[in-house]
């Protein structure tokens, strides 16, 4: 396999396709022509890509929960509850963790036991096991667009099945569904596999069917500095665009400092558009998704509501196209449908109150946007350089070299030397940069900000800050002060 950031040829595509559809019995039910026909009949209001386009145009922030259970009827019940009672604007189907590791026979155990116990023993919906027919059942019994949300390094079969079933959005990407989700899958492999998923979407686009793709911006959800996730987002957007994707939602997970968070979304949207334009992908629609706090949550539900609402506030003020909603059960376990709806309701209340309101430009906001863009550019330039102009190759080499370095990632293909910590205002900064090729100016900026905190806390800059920061939100604060 020779990785290149180049559109898969028809021949390559169909060769792979043949293999993967034979990987599990339900693969055989996927028929591209039938899929095109079916997708053409999906009503406009159930098209994810169109819903995002409309929201961007109107300056509205849409709310989407996460939700997945083991059994089809329960999943339909759940989604309808979240749509009608909760008021979700977009629907998900979260895929279980066995599917994510392509362990479909274990899914079957989960399905069987869930029927027996009459409660879901799986942490998501095993879409591959149910196949196109089961997934269509979901779409046909709900009233809004459906997206697959997962964390699957190799989601080629899953993608084939869900799109053929009319689900018009797929979350993931070669970096973002590897580094936080896998231990020893090479980036080369996941980029290749996601090129396939993107090419599939590109194929549908060529048939006039709009499908949305969403790289997973929150990564490990734990103190990821904005420029790190933004760099990953821009690369995945470029890789997807090369395969023909036209409707991309780049994402970012709330860090907690309001100005930094707003700046992150603004920088992300602008820079993604810039890079796409620069590399010739002119007709790609870029929207943004803001993830409400993705790190450890407080157990107390009232406190969780505070965290959720602040996330919604930030999404609204940033002008994100979509916000992914957390629930008051977050610290404990997969939420009941009621708790899930509560998270949506609190979120939508805030979005409605702030509808049309934005964080105005200010010196502080502009400074953060500038620093995020500058940091991101350092990584992007280097990746481009070592890939000799190829972002796919550059990414593989770049992760190996620690040019981009995701904190707390399980993957052994992540360099793992970078260490983040909050500054004295709670903004996430680079405490140890490892091999990230920052300019002296950027290094100094990060250092100064952390020194300010160190002075305030009367302790040295150290990994202890990071550890304290990891626990802080679940203990009711943003910054882990001693």
């Amino acid at each position, binding site marked *: 396999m020779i990785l290149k950031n180049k559109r898969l040829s028809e021949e390559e595509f169909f060769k792979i396709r043949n293999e993967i559809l034979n990987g599990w019995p339900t693969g055989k039910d996927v028929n591209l022509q039938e899929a095109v026909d079916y997708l053409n009949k999906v009503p406009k209001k159930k098209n994810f890509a169109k819903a995002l386009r409309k929201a961007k145009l109107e300056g509205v922030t849409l709310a989407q929960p996460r939700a997945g259970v083991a059994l089809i009827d329960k999943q339909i019940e759940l989604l309808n509850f979240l749509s009608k009672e909760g008021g979700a604007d977009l629907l998900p189907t979260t895929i279980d*963790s066995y599917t994510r590791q392509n362990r479909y026979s274990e899914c079957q*155990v989960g399905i069987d036991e869930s029927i027996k116990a009459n409660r*879901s023993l799986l942490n998501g919906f095993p879409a591959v096991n149910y196949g196109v027919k089961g997934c269509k059942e979901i779409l046909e019994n709900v009233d809004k667009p459906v997206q697959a949300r997962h964390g699957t390094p190799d989601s080629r079969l899953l993608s084939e099945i869900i799109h053929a079933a009319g689900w018009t959005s797929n979350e993931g990407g070669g970096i973002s569904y590897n580094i936080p989700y896998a*231990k020893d899958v090479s980036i080369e492999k996941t980029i290749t596999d996601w090129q396939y998923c993107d090419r599939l979407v590109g194929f549908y686009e060529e048939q006039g069917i709009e499908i949305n793709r969403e790289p997973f911006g929150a990564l490990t959800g734990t103190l990821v500095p904005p420029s790190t996730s933004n760099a990953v987002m821009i690369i995945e957007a470029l890789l997807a665009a090369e395969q023909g994707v036209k409707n991309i939602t780049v994402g970012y997970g709330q860090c907690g400092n309001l100005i930094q968070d707003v700046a992150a979304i603004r920088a992300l949207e602008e820079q993604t558009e810039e890079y796409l334009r620069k590399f010739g992908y002119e007709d790609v629609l870029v929207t943004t998704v803001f993830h409400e706090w993705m790190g450890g949550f407080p157990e107390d539900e009232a406190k969780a509501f505070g965290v959720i609402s602040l996330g919604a506030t930030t999404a609204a003020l940033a002008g994100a196209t979509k916000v992914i909603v957390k629930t008051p059960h977050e610290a*404990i376990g997969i*939420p009941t449908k009621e708790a899930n709806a509560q998270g949506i309701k609190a979120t939508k209340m805030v979005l409605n109150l702030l509808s049309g309101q934005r964080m105005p430009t200010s010196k502080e906001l502009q400074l953060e946007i500038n620093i995020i863009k500058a940091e991101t550019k350092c990584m992007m330039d280097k990746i481009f350089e070592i890939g000799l102009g190829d972002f796919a190759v550059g990414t593989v080499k770049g992760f190996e070299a620690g040019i981009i370095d995701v904190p707390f990632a399980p993957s052994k293909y992540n360099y793992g030397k970078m260490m983040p910590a909050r500054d004295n205002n709670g903004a996430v900064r680079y405490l140890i940069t490892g091999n990230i090729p920052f300019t002296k100016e950027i290094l100094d900026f990060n250092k100064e900000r952390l020194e300010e905190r160190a002075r305030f806390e009367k302790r040295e800059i150290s990994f202890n800050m990071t*550890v304290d920061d990891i626990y802080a939100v679940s203990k009711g604060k943003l910054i882990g002060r001693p």
Partner: protein
Amino acid sequence: MDKKTIVLGVIGSDCHAVGNKILDHVLTEAGFNVVNIGVLSPQEHFINAAIETNADVIMVSSLYGHGEIDCRGLREKCEEAGLRDILLYVGGNIVVGKQNWSDVYKRFIQMGFDRVYPPSTSTDTAINDLKEDLYKQSYNLAI
């Protein structure tokens, strides 16, 4: 007391790495010999690591909800492998959803775990329990 050895890992198809990295850091600082097999670890890896390092404790983390399926039979497999007195701990978010804790606790005790921890258990609790159990164990006291 000698330096005790703990095999640490996250079981099954579970990729939650943060708690694992922190436990590693904290337990090492507390004076344990930590053998961290990391995330996405099948039962066999725990057992092999425990045999290889002659471990005193296996600490299983499960965050993602499939703990109930993933942990089944671990005690039996330990015994088959000759790890007769090894302490088995489990913690994290070990079942799917917010369930009645005492039911969950019983289910895992019945599976043969010595200690079963609810979400957000502090590392201090873990360390205290480890010290207590290992002390008792070295004097052959009932745990």
